């Protein structure tokens, strides 16, 4: 991992506008941005650590703590909002015991609220590990989270 990180730094050295791509690729590598990695990026890009941290904290994509094994994104776009996304939050909280923005104690799930996944015609939707589950109800989502319902059963109306 450390080797891959050094190779990454080498690859992007001197490239115009390299800060954000470096942060993105580093996060891909480690799952989050360890403090030491940001110091290294600062060194390579010739910026201060504060500048790098400033950029990283500005964008929603970057995180500074490890993620859970599974990442669940509950969509709160306009269409999902008017179709009842709030009640999905209730179900998730009830099933997993965490509020959006947090990771379960066992490190299994990280739950996030996102602004819009762009699948508005299937609202309300939730994305789990990159896969979108649409036309949800509280009941359906509960089953998905419990691992009872498979994808096929979940996406039906």
């Amino acid at each position, binding site marked *: 991992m450390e080797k891959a990180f050094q190779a990454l730094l080498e690859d992007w050295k001197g490239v*115009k*506008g*390299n*800060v*954000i*791509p470096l*942060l*993105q690729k580093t996060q891909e590598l480690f799952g989050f941005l360890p403090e030491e990695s940001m110091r290294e990026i600062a060194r390579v*890009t010739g910026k201060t650590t504060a500048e790098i941290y*400033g*950029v990283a904290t*500005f*964008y*929603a*994509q*970057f995180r500074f703590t490890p993620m859970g094994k599974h990442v669940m994104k509950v969509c*709160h*776009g*306009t*269409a999902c*909002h*008017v*179709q*009842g996304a*709030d*009640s999905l939050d*209730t*179900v998730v*909280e*009830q099933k997993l015991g965490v509020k959006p923005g947090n990771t379960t104690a066992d490190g299994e799930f990280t739950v996030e609220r*996102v*602004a*819009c*996944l*762009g*699948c*508005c*015609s*299937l*609202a309300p*939707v939730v994305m789990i590990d*990159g*896969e*979108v*589950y*649409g036309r949800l*109800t*509280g*009941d359906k989502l*509960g089953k998905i989270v419990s691992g009872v319902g498979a*994808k*096929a059963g979940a*996406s*039906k109306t």
Partner: protein
Amino acid sequence: MNARAEVAVGMSSCGIAAGARVVFDQLTKDVSARGLPFSVVATGCIGACHAEPLVEVRQADGRTFLYGNVDEARAQAIVAGHLQAGTPVADLLIPADYPYLAKQKRVVLANCGVIDPESIEQYIAHDGYVALKKVLTELTPDAVIEQVKLSGLRGRGGAGFSTGIKWTFARDAKSLTGKKYVICNADEGDPGAFMDRSVLEGDPHAVLEGMLICAYAVGSDEGYLYVRAEYPLAIKRLQIALRQMEERNLLGSRILGTSFSFTMHIKEGAGAFVCGEETALMGSIEGKRGMPRLRPPFPAVRGLWDSPSNINNVETYANVPAIIRMGGKEYAKTGTEKSKGTKVFALAGKIKRGGMIEVPMGISLREIIFDIGGGILGDRKFKAVQMGGPSGGCVPEQLADVLVDYDSLTATGAIMGSGGMVVMDESTCMVDVARYFLAFIQSESCGKCTFCRIGTKRMLEILTRITEGEGEEKDIAVLEELAAKVKVSSLCGLGQTAPNPVLTTLRYFRSEYDDHIRNKRCAAKKCKALIRYDVLTATCTGCMLCAKVCPTKAAHGERKKPHEIDQDTCIQCGLCFEACRFSAIEISSGRGN
């Protein structure tokens, strides 16, 4: 005549989410098992998202048949009935005169759902790169801009600035760095909007061709596509497209043997709504915090890395090849006096037939919602349509006959916007909608301007209080005062337009605000603090379903006996209401709750 018989499956993000991949695999398996003379192909968004997954059968004789809501079993039926036996499966067929499609006019989406977006050959077979070739070999840069001006094309990102004039500024600008940049804004951040994603996923080459034509016209040799990281499939298809262009000398040095050279980069956004603002977007490409800066100087004079830059939205660029092919004059025949061409919308919310639509400018909102969209889900009462996301506003039912053009929509207090169109019915609370958008803006404000940073926070606090039944008479006046100040004291479009959802709902739905404040009543039964759930004992069968789903055990009772809901522990999540099969749960709102 389509020489090759094909079965095309709509494989955009939402198609895949609805199960298109399973259908694709099933079709591939069955077609090969039976040895049928059809190739199963993936295509972009066919547009009728409400009927996803969609499958189109294209017979060798040129006839096409569209199937909706296909699943594995239906895929098998289509293979057996249509592909093998030759009889279209009538029950599953979407009729050719389907009203959803009849009123649309496809220019930008002409190839979406028709070609395989990962095949440059198919793009070329559908007039792809004809416009670029014409531009490079027959037209001067000024002549290109002249055509764009003649077309009347205005920015499809929502503000509606004349594209031809914008290009002129960039062309005339003197570069101190020796560089000029062409940038595509694909940071589609409005919640409820997915037009740009569908275009990039369904026809990436059209956008790239448009950018190349622009680069030639303004004198640029380097371009950037700034795409949201939330759109992985769009990014993947763009990367494929760029590789194919390089292989065919459509990118790189001396393109198509001319003196025009161009390189292109894809930049992934990192999740900041404000980066849809052009100066913030450029800051982000440079690797900084995406914070807007004062204009002028405009990007056309000093943009990316201090060089003159032209920045347009995805849909704007996607219009350009068609304009060059048909000529600006011909393009301008569609639309109204000041708004030419077509506009792509993402139709969603409480509508029967949602999806990606492209309509000629000048169509009315009513036609879109009722003729194309088929009206409101469950035939409930249409209340409003939200346009333009957090920068836009809600157009009420009584103004539904307004025409879709930049100026008429602006007059309603909403805006054309980038194309998000979320339909709302009587079960949508307009105060809650205003609060929703303000909460969005508040968390996305970059914090540079005081009024945007703090003013929106104060407005959000007031709206939250109103939805929680703690509103006071004076709140409305304070909201209006703050709204006016946030508008004039913010540097960029995000802050300047942030109060729009509040102002339009106040303008058209003032009685709902008053109802919340005076009667502590939410007529749409949406605001949790103002509603209560009760079991209708006469209807309840005691099936225990509500008790099972209730997260706080507020709904309780014995089997086969009417249940009840304990008001002290009820959190108004609505799961019991959703679960009850006998309509035995009632929601009420008003004083005394």
